[in-house]
C-alpha cells in the first residue's frame, strides 16, 4: 500500500548497497536492509530527497490500551505525555532543569537542547492553536530536534506546532530568571541574618567542684 498519492521517486530498483549508501550520505545510521526493512528505508530516502512528510498509510486509530499518565522528564530525556494540564507541569520542571544547567540560554534553545523527545510529546498540540506571531516565528527552530538520532533533515514528523507549544507554555507560565535569582538572594540574606543573630552556645555557669570528696 503506497503511502503517498503523489508521484514519488521509486527506489525499488536500486540495489541494497546503493540504497544503503544513499541513506548514509544523508547521515542515516543504516541497519540491515532486507525484506523487513527495505520498504521503510526506501520511504526514508524519498522523504530525505523531497523533504516531504508522507501521510499515514492506514486509518489512524485512537485506540490505546489505557489512560495516559503524566510523565516527568528525567535527565536522560524521557518522553512525556501531552495532556494540556500536564504540559504546564512539564514546562515548569523543564525550566528548572534549564536554569540549573545554564541560565544564559534562551527559552527556545533551552527547550530545544534539554529534551528532544519532549517536543515529540506534544502531538495533541493541535489544541493549542492560538499561537502568537512571535512564537510562530520560532516554530522553525525546534525543527532539528531529532538530530541526535541519525538524520539531518528537519521536517520528518514534526509539525511546527510542537516546538512552539513548549516554548509558548514556558513563556506563559514561566517565572522570569531574574525573579528567581532575587528570591534566592532574599533567602540567602535571611539565612545570613539568622546566623548572625544566633545566640552563642550556652555557657555553663555552674562552677566545677575541684576536689571531689567522698562522703
Amino acid at each position, binding site marked *: 500500500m503506497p503511502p503517498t498519492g503523489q508521484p514519488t521517486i521509486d527506489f525499488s530498483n536500486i540495489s541494497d548497497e546503493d540504497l544503503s549508501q544513499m541513506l548514509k550520505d544523508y547521515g542515516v545510521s543504516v541497519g540491515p536492509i532486507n525484506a523487513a526493512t527495505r520498504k521503510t528505508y526506501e520511504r526514508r530516502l524519498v522523504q530525505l530527497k523531497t523533504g516531504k512528510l508522507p501521510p499515514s498509510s492506514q486509518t489512524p486509530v485512537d485506540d490505546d*490500551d489505557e489512560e495516559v499518565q503524566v510523565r516527568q522528564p528525567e535527565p536522560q530525556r524521557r518522553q512525556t505525555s501531552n495532556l494540556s494540564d500536564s504540559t504546564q507541569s512539564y514546562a515548569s520542571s523543564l525550566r528548572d532543569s534549564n536554569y540549573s544547567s545554564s541560565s544564559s540560554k534562551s527559552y527556545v534553545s533551552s527547550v530545544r537542547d534539554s529534551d528532544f523527545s519532549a517536543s*515529540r510529546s506534544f502531538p495533541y498540540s493541535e489544541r493549542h492553536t492560538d499561537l502568537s506571531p512571535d512564537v510562530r516565528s520560532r516554530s522553525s527552530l525546534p525543527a532539528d530536534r531529532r538530530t541526535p538520532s541519525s538524520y539531518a533533515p528537519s521536517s520528518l514528523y514534526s509539525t511546527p506546532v510542537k516546538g512552539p507549544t513548549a516554548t509558548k507554555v514556558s513563556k506563559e507560565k514561566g517565572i522570569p530568571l531574574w525573579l528567581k535569582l532575587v528570591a534566592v538572594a532574599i533567602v540567602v540574606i535571611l539565612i545570613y541574618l539568622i546566623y548572625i543573630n544566633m545566640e552563642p552556645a550556652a555557657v555553663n555557669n555552674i562552677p566545677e567542684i575541684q576536689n571531689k570528696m567522698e562522703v
Partner: protein
Amino acid sequence: MSTTSKKHRNFVSEPMGEKPVTELAGIGDVLGKRLIDQNYDKAYTVLGQFLLFKKDEGLFTDWLNDKCGANSKQQGDCYQCLKEWCDSFL
C-alpha cells in the same frame, strides 16, 4: 521518578518471553490485530524489527505507522517501551 502507564511498566519489568504484541505499550486491540494479521503476533517480532532499525526512533516509528497506522503518541509509547526493555534486558 517518571510516571508511565501500567502497561509500560508491566512490559519493561520482565523479559518479554512469548508475550503477544498487544502487551506492548501503545498497541491496543485494533493495532494489535493489524500487526497480527501481518504475522507480527509476538512482541519479540516487533522487537526484532526495532533492533533491525538499530533502535532508531524515526525509522521504527515510521515502520510502525506503516504497518498498523499507529499515531505519533502510540508510536512513541511503543518505541519508549521497547527502548527501556532493551536497556534492561538486551
